[in-house]
Structures are given as C-alpha cells and as structure tokens.
C-alpha cells in the first residue's frame, strides 16, 4: 500500500523523524483554516500517489489567506498524471539550504534492505543515478543485526555530506531504518531531505510503501487506505479479495495464480486477442470468490468474451465449477465463456459443468485451444 505524503510524514513523526508541522485538508475551507493556524508562508500540496507534483502545479506557496484559498481551489480536483487530487496537505514553508535524497528499498536480489543517500536531492534520483552514479552512496543492511551507527557514517561520508551534518544525518537515517522495520515498509523515500539555514535536517517529502501482507499487525496503518483514489472496479475486486488490473482489450480473463494469468494474457495476445483485464483469484479460490470474479469482469462493459483458465493445485476445479454455475444463476451473463479446467478435482469440475449445461459456455482441453476459442468468440465468431 502506497501512502500519501502526509500519511508518510505522520508515520515519520511517530518515530521521531523531524518533519514540518502541517495539517491535511479535504476542502478549500479546511485548507484555509489550516493555513491560518500554521501561519504564512505555507505550502499547499496536492496529495496524490505519483511523483512530479511540483512540475504539474500541485505544490504552491501561499503568503496570505487569499493565496491559500486560491491555491487550494486550484489544486483540489486537479488531475495529475491520471490521479485526481482529493486531498491537500498544508504545511509551514521551510527554508532550504541544501536538498539531500535518501531511501530504503527492499532489495530482492541481495535479500536485504538497500539504503541510499545522496546530496543531490530534490530531483529525480533515477536521473542522478544515470548522470552521476558516484553521487549516490548505498549499502545493504543485514536485517538480523540491523542498522548500526557505522552504516550512517559510511553513507554520510561516502555521499559527501558536510562534516557538521554527519552525526545528525546518521541519526536521521537510523530513525528512518527504525521506521522501515517497525512499520514493515517495503519502501521509504525522502526527497528532499532538507538542511535548513540553522543546520537542522528535516523530511520535506515522504514516500512510504507498506507491506499489505503485514497490515494485520498494524491496525492503524490498515485504516490509511485511500479508496477514493482507486479505480472503482479495482476497488470492488480488492474488497472481495481479488487482484484485478484493468486493461484496454475486450476479453475478460480469470485464472488461478499470477504466473498462469500472465501467461494466459501472452497466449491470448499471440492468437490476436486483447485482454480486458488481469484477474487473479488467489490460492484456494472458493465458489463465492468465483462469483465475485465474474461480477468484476462483467462490470467492464468492453468485455465481449470471457476466458476461465484454471489449473488447480490448491484451487479445486469442482469449487471453481460450482462458483461458475452459481455466478450464472445470479448474474446471467450475456457474453460467451470459454472454460479450461485442469488439475485438482478436474474430473469432478468438468462433470459439474457438463451437468449444468450453462448457456454459451464452451470448454477447452488446453490453454492454447482455450485462448484460440475466446479470441474467435470475442471477434463475434462461433467457437
């Protein structure tokens, strides 16, 4: 789960990481009230889960109440790279002497957290990595021993941090790592990490991704979800425990397991079809999950045909078949289905489908055959 800037900053503050004082606002009036309380100048910042807000006009400095109103009015509802601004964060404007960059990511290759620090902050770090790789200091932290003071010093010295800031930066990084671990984040990024004229260091931005699988241990964080920012269909799918990604085509796809679904997309494309979605029903899909999945797929009006590609392991084909029968009873779909059932309890599953003899449901015995059939059906042919 990606957090909004202000959610990340509130998380930081809980762990003693210095951040500017601020308040969230969902309306212009709330924004103006917040600005008055915080004082001027203050920053009015769009809260969207995408980079490049500044360039897009999503961050503005207000020097008085009128400007605060004007900026809040302009930014609320703004579209930034496809994300609508539903919320603002109003914070005291900071004086900036230098802008650094720091982040901790989950490095799959090294199987350890990767910690980066650069004195070239405030800009796109990928560009820095490209143009001046030496400007980024990085190291892995052994997760069993955790962050040590020497990690902080090494990053600071190697990044070329000013001598008087080596200690405060080290302390900042230490707290950031503590946050990363305690909140079970898979990414924390501060860009820019600013140095003020008083030589204090502060997180001026916050990008935090939390591990969804760990939210059960963090009930406060679990409530930070921002449903308003999500696609309504994806939201509907998520509420039903499904993983759904909407795509541009007209063939609805459901499979069990991410890998098989991705492969199905590739094979459908090979036969000339265009998938309408990626939908992964998860391990051990039960009948009602299947019903929900059909509902989600059909809520996309572009869908002209649906492919069910199931190779049961922990998922049992008889349960998938029952789910499909149930879905047909409840929803009565108007588009053709192609169903391929293999794996655990496939004989039982096929039998259930045969006995139900659902209208306009075709079966296939291989993935290739199934893909070919659904492409033809989507084009209006008969399989």
């Amino acid at each position, binding site marked *: 789960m990606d957090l909004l800037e202000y959610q990340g900053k509130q998380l930081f503050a809980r762990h003693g990481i210095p951040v500017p004082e601020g308040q969230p606002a969902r309306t212009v009036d709330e924004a103006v009230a917040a600005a008055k309380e915080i004082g001027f100048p203050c920053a009015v910042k769009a809260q969207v889960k995408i980079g490049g807000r500044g360039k897009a006009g999503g961050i503005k400095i207000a020097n008085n109440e009128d400007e605060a109103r004007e900026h809040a009015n302009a930014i609320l509802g703004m579209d930034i790279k496809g994300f609508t601004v539903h919320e603002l964060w109003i914070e005291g404007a900071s004086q900036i002497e230098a802008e650094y960059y720091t982040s901790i990511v*989950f490095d*799959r*290759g090294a*199987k*350890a*957290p990767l910690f980066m620090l650069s004195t070239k902050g405030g800009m796109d770090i*990928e560009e820095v990595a490209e143009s001046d790789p030496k400007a980024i200091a990085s190291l892995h932290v*052994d*997760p*069993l021993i955790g962050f040590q003071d020497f990690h902080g010093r090494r990053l600071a010295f190697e990044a070329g941090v000013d001598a008087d800031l080596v200690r405060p930066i080290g302390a900042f990084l230490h707290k950031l790592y503590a946050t990363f*671990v305690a909140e*079970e984040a*898979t990414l924390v990024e501060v860009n820019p990490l600013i140095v003020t004229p008083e030589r204090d260091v502060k997180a001026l931005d916050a990008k935090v991704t939390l*591990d969804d*699988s*760990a939210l*059960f*241990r963090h009930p406060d964080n679990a409530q930070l979800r921002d449903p308003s920012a999500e696609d309504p269909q994806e939201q509907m799918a998520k509420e039903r425990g499904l*993983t759904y*990604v909407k*795509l541009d085509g007209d063939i609805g796809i459901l*499979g*069990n*397991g*991410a*890998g*098989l*679904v*991705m*492969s199905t*997309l*590739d*094979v459908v*494309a*090979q036969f000339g079809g265009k*998938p309408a979605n*990626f939908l*992964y029903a*998860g*391990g*051990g899909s039960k009948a009602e999950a299947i019903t929900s999945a059909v509902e989600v797929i059909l809520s996309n009006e572009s869908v002209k045909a649906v492919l069910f590609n199931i*190779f*049961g*392991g*922990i*998922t049992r084909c008889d349960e998938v078949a029952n789910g499909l029968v149930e879905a047909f009873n409840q929803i009565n779909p108007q588009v053709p289905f192609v169903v391929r059932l*293999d*794996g*655990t309890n*496939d004989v039982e599953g096929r039998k259930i489908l045969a006995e139900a003899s659902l209208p306009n449901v075709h079966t296939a015995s*291989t*993935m*290739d055959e199934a893909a070919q059939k659904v492409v033809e059906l989507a084009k209006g042919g008969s399989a």
Partner: protein
Amino acid sequence: MAVLVDKDTKLVVSGITGREGTFHAMNNKRYGTQVVAGVTPGKGGQDVEGVPVFDTFHEAVDKTGANTAMVFVPPRFAADSILEAQDAGIALVIAITEGIPAHDELRVYNHLKNTGTRLVGPNCPGILSPGKANVGIIPASFFKEGNVGVVSRSGTLTYQIGNTLAQQGFGNSSIVGIGGDPVPGSSFVDVIELFEADPETELIVMAGEIGGDAEERAAEYIKANVSKPVVAYIAGFTAPPGKTMGHAGAIVSGSKGTAAAKAETLEANGVRVGRTPTQVAEIAMEILGA
C-alpha cells in the same frame, strides 16, 4: 535420483489439522510420500488418518526422524513455524503459505542462510519428484517420471509448463516451485545447481516471470556453471508496465525486469526462451528428441 524430495523424504506437516493441511497432506501420502508426522500446538497426541500429531517440531523430529517439513499454517504463524522447523534440525522446509509479511521472510531467509536448513518457498506449490514423492499442492497425476527438471516462480504456471511437456511425452526428474515472493528461500540458481548435479536430469526448464532480477542472475550462473541444456519461459510479455500483477514477484518498474529484457539476457547467455508454454515444449523436443 531426483532433487530435494524422494523415497527417503520423511515429511512432517505443520498445520496438518487444518482443512487444507489435511487435504494436501493426505494427497501427498496417497501419492506415496512418507508423511510421518504433523505439528499442531495443543493437538499433540491426536492423529490425522493415522499420521501422529505433535505439539512441537522438536518432538516430531525426535519421535519420527522427520527430515523434511511442509508448512501449511496461516501467514501470521508461518515464519515462526519455519524457524521452529530449522531449530528442530529439519534439513528442508517447504513453505506453501501465501501472504507471509515481507519482513518476516527477510528475517527467516537471513537466519536460515547461516544454518544447514534449506527453505523452498514460501508461497510456492511445493516439490514433486514423479514416482517418488510429492510434497505440496502440485497435482501429481499430470506428471510422470522422466528426464526434465522444472523450476518455476509461479505455482499454476508450473503445472501448465509441466503439463504441456507431458503432452509432448516428457517426464520429469523433479518439479520445483520456488514461489514468487519478495524473498524466496531458494532461487533459480540454487535449484539449477541441484539439477546440474542430478544424473537423472537431462534438460532443465526454468519458468520465470516479470519483476526482480532472479532470471538475469540465473542466466549468468548458467553460462558459467551449467553443462546441461536449459530452456526458459518468461510470463508477462504483454503485461502493462507499472502495475502490480497479483503477487509481489510480478512488478514491472521501468525497463528493468520486463519479460523482453529477461529473455534477451537469457538468450545472450545461451539459454533458449520459449514465448509460450507450447513453444517451450517444442524447444525441449528439438533438444531431446520426441
């Protein structure tokens, strides 16, 4: 021969008294796997269709000589169960559980790498050595003994590839699902090393997917260390960039980690790449003959 599981496997199942645990443990047992014990705290002294249940792994190992563990408990208990299996001296832990927190996986991996215990998974379908043993949820009836070793990040894709190969007449030495989680206990490299050393395996098939760089690492390893032919498959050529595709393994970020980039690296290191499961079987046929 086979890799990791075989006739000598003595399996203890953590979570054997749960619905799924019982179902798959009994499936494994019917296949011929020696399922010697189960572990469910508080249910010690009971049995599941004749398999004795213990309160702790230590007692299970002590009483039954179990050498391999299958972990089937809910995500919040899985890390603890894997660590317990290691502490009890289990040599191979196969973790089926999906949805284990990433930081748990990080701790478990980094601890186990300092011990003699190998972890396969989590979030994996397990390991099948046809005709010898099945540990996990792989539908074994689709596979028969043979000379193709399969290793895969994705569960259901494993079945698909194996099945496509089977339809062409190929059998398998072993099929190893390593799982698609952020920190898998065993990587492609780890399993390919085993297949290289396994006399029964004559061809290695690896099934990868978008995200991460495990396939790229495997490509370099294969070039330097593997004498047997390797055929690769990568799922996700048509996946849209920047979207999370179902599980953590399947994230495309920027140019790195795309299916095309992976295929290119593999081919540059002498590994042929099939674009669909069917193509993989065709390449296998070219290499081994029908």
